[in-house]
């Protein structure tokens, strides 16, 4: 932060006159471009989820809001998502240590757990609608479907990247590409786990 302020305060027309040598490398971050892109995406996605949450809080105050009894399935689903996140992290660490076999195994497990999470979310929808809570029944249930749906859509997008990475992991696949994708997948899953934590907490307490 202070370095940013320092940069912004510098006088570019003066700097450089004393350094006659080679200009320096100026990349802002020392890790891969794709990771920078992903972090920038978190910025966008966080803005999106934040605004949904703000909308939720603002809508809550109206008199027609009837709190929802969340299905217990959500606890189990949360467990799956934690497992998925852990498995992908494990896979990433294995790849760093050149343990391809375990890495592949854990990566597959992470994807499977994510699929279980999504299935579980669908089951929760099913339970809710059987209990009479349709999308339009009440703003609380509308938000439930909306928030879980948007979160699920993000996870689904992650699974597309996951599936692509699987092809790199096949015998003869691009090892370096696989490693960098697994890195990104793990980070993305952690992010979605945090988002889910926040959303789940919000749904539980209201």
């Amino acid at each position: 932060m202070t370095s940013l302020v320092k940069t912004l305060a510098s006088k570019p027309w003066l700097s450089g006159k004393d350094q006659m040598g080679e200009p320096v490398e100026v990349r802002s971050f020392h890790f891969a471009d794709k990771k920078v892109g992903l972090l920038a995406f978190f910025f966008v996605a966080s803005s999106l989820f934040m605004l949904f949450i703000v909308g939720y809080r603002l809508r809550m105050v109206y008199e027609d809001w009837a709190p929802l009894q969340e299905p217990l399935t959500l606890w189990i689903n949360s467990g799956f998502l934690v497992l998925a996140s852990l498995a992908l992290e494990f896979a990433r660490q294995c790849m760093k240590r050149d343990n391809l076999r375990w890495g592949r195994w854990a990566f597959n497990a992470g994807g499977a757990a994510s699929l279980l999470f999504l299935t579980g979310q669908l089951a929760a929808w099913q339970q809710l609608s059987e209990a009479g809570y349709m999308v339009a029944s009440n703003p609380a249930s509308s938000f439930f479907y909306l928030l879980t749906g948007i979160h699920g859509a993000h996870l689904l997008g992650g699974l597309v990247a996951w599936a692509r990475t699987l092809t790199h992991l096949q015998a003869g696949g691009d090892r370096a590409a696989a490693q960098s994708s697994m890195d990104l997948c793990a980070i993305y899953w952690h992010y979605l786990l945090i988002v889910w934590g926040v959303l789940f907490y919000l749904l539980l307490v209201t």
Partner: protein
Amino acid sequence: MAYADQDTGHHHGPDAFIWKYVWSQDHKVIAIQYGCTAIAVGLLALVLSWLMRMQIGFPGSLEFIDPSAYYQYVTMHGMIMVIYLLTAFFLGGFGNYLIPLMCGARDMVFPFMNMLSYWFYLVSVIILVASYFVPGGPTGAGWTLYPPQSILQGTPGTDWGIVLMLLSLAVFIVAFTMGGLNYITTVLQARCRGMTLMRMPLSVWGIIAATLLGLLAFPALFVSAVMLLFDRLLDTSFFMPYIVHMGQALETGGGSPVLFQHLFWFFGHPEVYIVALPAFGLVSDILSTHARKNIFGYRMMVWAIIAIGGISFIVWAHHMYISGMNLYLGYFFATTTLIVAIPTAIKVYNWTLTLWHGNIILNTPMLFSIGFISTFLIGGLTGLFLGNVAVDIPLSDTYFVVAHFHMVMAIAPVMVVFAAIYHWYPKMTGRMYNEALGKWHFWITFLGTYLIYFPMHYLGFEGMPRRYYAYEGYEFISASAYGLNQFITVAAISVGVLQVLFLINMIWSLKAGRVAGPNPWLATTLEWQTPDTPPCHGNWRDELPMVYRWAYDYSVPGQEQDYLPQNQPMDNGEPDLSTDSATGAAPA
């Protein structure tokens, strides 16, 4: 990653036409695709504005304009111009073209995603235009799409039009996000050696600040669009209160239309700056180049961009002073809104002070840039009326508002669009545009728009409400106001039609323009230093450029040449300016 090996390879572009111009991953081609699509859809919106003006100036003269058609024109015109033309043109067009070139990169860091961004944009445009071909036509809810009106009968296009509009916006936001992530990452990671942040031209600053605003603000539009789509298709009540509509009680109830407005304007106000900040940046570089003088107060200009961008997130409710929101919010938003005038005013001063003691060449890009200062000045100053809550109350929803926002976010940015197209045309095509035709284009556009919008403010003072299909029988409107409206209509259609001069110039000069050479303006920034003109795929041949100085070394004292390109190494004979006092007093 296509350019992981940025420092080594010389990149040959793919040769087949379809890979070169259609499924291209070259940022320059994508930029031109964005630009041409935006102009095409913009022309549609221009024609819609003529139809609207015909109805206002000469009511009933065109029989096919009934109230629903009129409100559909209003809506489509506004939405297209704001989102699909200006946002797409500044960021998808100029952002794409200039960021890699000005930063000394070979391309965007994610070229494939960049290509996807354009195709998603094209899909969003197609969905939008398709709404003219569905039963009921496009939505006529106004570009603000306020519920409950936008999804209830009594507004045109509530069957299909509104659904397609919301879908199209969602697709556009996806397209923008893909582009925006690219711009940010490219600026952060792919600047060439020596290109520190403060050596970047203001164009890059403006574009990147606007991109950041967009990445934060467009989610708000996405959220409101998705929730509105739920209300429309699934009968939820996010925004729907208890309503008795045309005698029938609706099933929905309990929601809040004001909630939508907060979400919408949380996007909608930064959107103004998403259009304005790139314009600020581009115009700074053009003014500096053609005044042969460094931009005055570069640091202040950068800080102002950052300040404006930041404050733009806490002023949104000045669009809602009379929306029925809590009235005490008016104090806060009026104060923040008037504070944003200060950094904006600094920018205007610094542009004019760049002219001061310059060596001004009045070619077409420079004329349009000075035209921008003048038109933006009016738009900015009238914003001080509407931002100040007590002044806004009588003026809101009148033609004063229409005149204000057209001046500030239509005419002024469009002046920059033209200035920038003329300025970078020689680089993009390798040929010079026709200067005489360009000047005619400037005079017609500048004087014409002034004649259209300056008197329009006075119709607003008189209280003429906006978004009216007809004013028949309203007694408080003076008879002469109808005459003024006819004049405005004639002026608007003439100026619009004469934009054909611009199109002719662009197309004709492609073949017949004089060959421009790599740096016809003797400019300092990197895009003018490329080995090829137009730049090849990959921009730089074998070696990436290296940057030794800031972007504005014009008329440096003691130098024979009146410009020093950014990639020109420091020379031992160059006077050491670092001993100059911090005030940087001008040598006589």
